[in-house]
């Protein structure tokens, strides 16, 4: 009869022969040399787990998972002009991608038009330049918006961009209630991690809730928020912090909507999530499972949601950008493949795989094709899609799932004790936790305790560089000129009236979406509308904590 694990460790485990002092995940979580039933005292399938598609959804949100439907293959894309990005969209759809995901440039994301001094050097660089409705029309020219789901990664200018998207759909003859897709619109994580903001947290939250309320009524298939952990993780957090802060953000949005008088089941089914998939294979799979279990419990017990769809954490995932190396970039293909597999075994609904050249540039066509094929090979050749939650029941995975759930719940409790996520953000709590974790990881890398192959181990003289995507600087001049001409060609009276209506709604409590939609139809620009927010809601400045 086998010994207990404790006895076995004491009697048989050769601790002196271990290669390292510690064995820990990339998040610095210590893990056991082996997991056994002793690590799961009292664990029983019926009580601890449940089938896929059954509350609390640890094993997945749907009964058939990938047998019924594969995850959406949704590569984040955007650069240069609307025309350039439209071409890349068509290319990706032609190569078998099943959903679109839009990257906008920094001026668009921060509320500046292409002709603004603050846009210098930035137009079309990190994503596509969109200053007004005409750009949005060009961006989605020839794309069947009623049939393809579109995600847009934009936050403090999300109201304006969603208004434009709805206006374009209208012009395409697609009813808003047919539109499926997502707008990121997660301002809490901006203050915590991604740092794209205009105004302080409270008015930013008001805009988010306006959009949640509007979409629940007018675009019920649309996801008005993508509650994100990806950026929190990229900023250097641990897996537990990524999960905890993301769900704390989600709690903040649900609470704000409920406080406004919305019934939780009227909007919760269209909340969506977005997680990172980092290097540690086991930790990531466990994180996704813990995420679903924890959110379902929160929604049912804390918020009293009744509709099962309000309890399901449905998520997009992206492989970790911060894990990629500029050195020996072909190795990134391997990293992404392992991470993508973890995302699939974690049960994601949608996936972006990074390209090998993304440490130095936006993806080239060749590189993004390999990244897309990575997903297609997992889907068609690996066999993992035949079985829902195939690692469920593994002692390691179940123990890690329980542990991550427990530790994330403790952080959420701490944030509650601070007075909720807005207060925690004002105090800098998540920001400082993340900075601390980031610093600790960097020290571990510098000391060689954590390895980055090609960077601090297995170093070579680098060969000739990859052909990188370059954004032509003339795009900035052209876009700035286009914006100037459009501003001159507009009906000034109608533009002023439209902006006034936005200002009045902003000053009061009326939902901002109707005046935003009317304004974008007059070619009011991203910058003009953002200026109104600056004026009415104030300008948030980086606290600049180190």
């Amino acid at each position, binding site marked *: 009869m086998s010994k207990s694990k404790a006895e076995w460790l004491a009697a048989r485990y050769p601790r002196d022969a271990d290669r390292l002092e510690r064995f820990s995940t990339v998040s610095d979580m210590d893990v056991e040399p082996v997991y056994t039933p002793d690590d799961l005292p009292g664990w029983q399938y019926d009580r601890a787990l449940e089938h896929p598609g059954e509350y609390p959804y640890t094993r997945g949100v749907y009964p058939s998972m990938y047998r019924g439907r594969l995850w959406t293959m949704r590569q984040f894309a955007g650069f240069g002009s609307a025309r350039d990005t439209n071409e890349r969209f068509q290319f990706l759809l032609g190569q078998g991608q099943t959903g679109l995901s839009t990257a906008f440039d920094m001026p668009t994301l921060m509320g500046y038009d292409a002709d603004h001094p603050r846009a210098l050097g*930035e137009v079309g660089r990190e994503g596509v330049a969109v200053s007004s409705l005409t750009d949005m029309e060009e961006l989605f020219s020839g794309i069947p918006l009623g049939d393809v789901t579109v995600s847009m990664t934009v936050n403090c200018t999300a109201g304006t961009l969603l208004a434009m998207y709805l206006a374009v759909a209208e012009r395409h003859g697609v009813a808003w209630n047919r539109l499926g897709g997502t707008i990121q619109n997660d301002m809490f994580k901006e203050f915590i991690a991604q740092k794209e903001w205009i105004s302080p947290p409270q008015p930013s939250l008001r805009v988010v809730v306006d959009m949640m309320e509007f979409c629940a009524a007018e675009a019920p298939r649309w996801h008005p928020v993508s509650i994100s952990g990806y950026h929190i993780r990229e900023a250097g957090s641990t897996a537990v912090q990524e999960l905890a802060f993301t769900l704390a953000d989600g709690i903040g949005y649900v609470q704000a909507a409920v406080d406004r008088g919305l019934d939780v089941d009227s909007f919760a089914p269209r909340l969506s999530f977005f997680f990172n998939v980092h290097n540690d294979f086991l930790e990531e799979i466990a994180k996704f499972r813990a995420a679903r279990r924890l959110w379902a419990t929160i929604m049912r017990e804390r918020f009293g949601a009744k509709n099962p769809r309000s309890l399901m954490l449905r998520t997009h995932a992206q492989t970790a950008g911060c894990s990629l190396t500029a050195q020996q970039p072909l190795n990134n293909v391997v990293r992404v493949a392992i991470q993508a597999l973890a995302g699939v075994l974690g049960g994601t609904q949608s996936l972006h795989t990074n390209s090998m050249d993304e440490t130095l540039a936006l993806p080239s066509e060749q590189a993004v094709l390999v990244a897309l094929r990575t997903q297609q090979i997992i889907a068609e050749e690996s066999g993992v899609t035949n079985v829902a939650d195939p690692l469920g029941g593994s002692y390691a995975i179940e123990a890690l799932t329980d542990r991550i759930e427990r530790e994330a719940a403790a952080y959420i409790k701490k944030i509650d004790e601070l007075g909720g996520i807005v207060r925690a953000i004002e105090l800098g709590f998540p920001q400082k936790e993340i900075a601390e974790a980031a610093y600790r990881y960097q020290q571990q890398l510098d000391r060689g305790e954590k390895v980055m192959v090609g960077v601090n181990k297995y170093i070579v003289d680098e060969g000739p560089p990859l052909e990188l995507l370059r954004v032509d600087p003339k795009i900035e001049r052209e876009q700035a000129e286009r914006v100037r001409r459009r501003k001159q060609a507009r009906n000034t009276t109608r533009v002023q009236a439209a902006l006034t209506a936005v200002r009045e709604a902003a000053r009061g409590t009326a939902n901002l979406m109707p005046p935003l939609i009317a304004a974008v139809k007059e070619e009011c620009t991203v910058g003009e509308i953002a200026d109104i927010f600056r004026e009415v809601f104030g300008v948030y400045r980086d606290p600049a904590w180190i």
Partner: protein
Amino acid sequence: MAERRVRILVAKPGLDGHDRGAKIIARALRDGGFEVIYTGLHQTPEMIAETALQEDVDAIGLSILSGAHMALFPAVIDQLKQRGITDVVLFGGGIIPPEDVLELKRLGVSEMFTPGATTDAIVEWVRTHVRPH
């Protein structure tokens, strides 16, 4: 008389919000014994040069990951010149392709630290290349 401590400005020009690296460098330099002023995000070249002047810094570390470095680094250099600041050591980091690193060094940036550089290497470089003026 004891030499005063070297003062370093760590700055984030432009709209780029990626501050993980800049904050780590700022902290490592502070732990390494330097006086560090961190500007925070979303600084214009004018703001950076003005802070450099007001804080009487010996070196400026510019961090940029948004691809706008070829516009913003030269603009910072220009703003420093306009304020008569000529003895500040400039270094930088972020997402900068190799050919741009060469060009920026030609323009007056002393060193660029790109992905994979260790904090120890950066702190040591500053120690050897930056003196209080």
